[in-house]
């Protein structure tokens, strides 16, 4: 996809977001409340099996940051697709010279940038409340974030494939979204779960991403120490991205063949 097309999508999304000014301001400030909430909650929560420097506050704050990030990637594509269908712009967009996969990925860029700003705000608030970070390898942080976003954006594109054909209702985001909170190691470590659920957690990219993020942010680890996290994350991304592109291409062919692009 051409640079001007990516820039045009980013600019459009920013202009649309800013056109709902109150919503934009309220969303931007919401992280501060969750930082305070987790701070006081962690004052009396002890979780078995938590061996994270900084205790539960550090554990849940890093988990929350990651969850926001991957949720933006997961829901971004399907949300945007649904909005374009309802607005009546989807048919026009997918018939432009810009490649459909490029449009989809570009349409989550603003969400990811805003989530990055939100994550910085959240972590800054955490630091103000006594959270100590030991980030010595920013590159490791970027690699983990990139692989996580790739995996979850792929799942989002899979969800979008369903939406192209059925307009509303897709099984991917409700299923994955529910599993993330339960098994993803965001609010509590999977080690406290029954063994079969703890084993199932290892089938989710988020649990590896959570381990990696905590190791980088709280323990100062670098890429060399993260093989056990990066390899599974890379495997998920390498598997899911081509699969999602294939699924979306098939759904788009079907939508053009059956005349479904203009439906909403």
């Amino acid at each position, binding site marked *: 996809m*051409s*640079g*001007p*097309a990516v*820039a*045009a*999508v980013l*600019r*459009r999304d920013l*202009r*649309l977001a800013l*056109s*709902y000014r109150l919503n934009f301001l309220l969303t931007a400030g919401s992280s501060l409340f969750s930082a305070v909430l987790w701070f006081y909650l962690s004052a009396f929560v002890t979780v078995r099996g938590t061996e994270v420097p900084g205790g539960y506050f550090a554990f849940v704050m890093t988990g929350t940051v990651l969850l926001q990030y991957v949720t933006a990637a997961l829901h971004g594509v399907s949300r945007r697709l649904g909005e374009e269908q309802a*607005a*009546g*712009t989807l*048919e*026009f*967009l997918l*018939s*432009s*010279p*810009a490649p459909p996969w490029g*449009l989809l990925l570009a349409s989550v860029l603003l969400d990811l940038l805003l989530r990055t700003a939100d994550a910085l705000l959240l972590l800054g608030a955490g630091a103000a409340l006594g959270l100590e970070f030991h980030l010595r390898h920013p590159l490791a942080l970027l690699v983990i974030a990139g692989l996580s976003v790739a995996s979850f954006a792929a799942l989002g594109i899979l969800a979008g494939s369903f939406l192209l*054909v*059925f*307009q509303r209702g897709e099984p991917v985001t409700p299923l994955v979204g529910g599993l993330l909170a339960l098994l993803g190691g965001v609010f509590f470590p999977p080690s406290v779960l029954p063994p079969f659920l703890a084993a199932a957690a290892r089938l989710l990219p988020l649990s590896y991403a959570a381990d990696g993020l905590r190791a980088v942010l709280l323990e100062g680890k670098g890429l060399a120490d993260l093989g056990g996290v990066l390899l599974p994350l890379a495997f998920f991304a390498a598997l899911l991205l081509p699969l999602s592109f294939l699924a979306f291409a098939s759904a788009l*062919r079907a939508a*053009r*063949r*059956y*005349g*479904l*692009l*203009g439906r909403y």
Partner: protein
Amino acid sequence: MTGGSRGGAALTVRDLRFTYPALWGPLAWLARGPSRPLPVLKGLSFSLSPGEHVCLMGKNGAGKTTLFKAIQGFLDPSGGEILLEGRPAGREARWRTGFAATDERSFYHRLTVLENLEFFGGLWGLPAKEARVRARETAERLGLTPHLDRPFSDLSTGWRQRAALARALLHRPGLLLLDEPTRSLDAPSAARFRALLREEPLREVTVLLSTHNLEEAREVGSRCLVLAGGRLVLDGPPPAAEGLSALMEGSP
């Protein structure tokens, strides 16, 4: 009577067919799609010469919009071929066609007209600065300049039609597809819209315009295509009103 392929044609449509396929039973129920095949276009053949302005007529459901959508790439034809300047209409063909429909839903209503045009220019690969310059130039030619900074939602139907036309012209296509562009316009606005077709930059562009208005068909060009039941039943000068009614009903 149907026209055949002509040398150096801007658009050639050959034996074009489109059928909404039947969906498999449970899938038809889930997606609320057709459970029986629905043929819409049944072997259309015609061509347009560069710079020619041609009207497309037919009753509701005759296949006019489906034809536009197939040319523009919104739909994949079931058979036949569409050639743009002699080459098969694929993704690259989207640079060569512009499409303006009566459907105003294809704009972002919270963005201004200029912001919308900049965005769509970007999708067609125009850098931001160039997209803005072209949007202003095109708006100037269409008399849209005073409305560029208004949210699209605030525009009247006539100005929305012009915004749709401006969008279709941004990437300077050789072929313009106009699907009932004057349907919701009052008489003076419709006349002004038709006058635009005789002015730069539209005068040099090949135009296929669908309409239900016979006077409009006569004003736009000397050639008219009439569809009935998915078939081309006339390719020639706009007929008299009574003849047109008979053609649309499918009897020559």
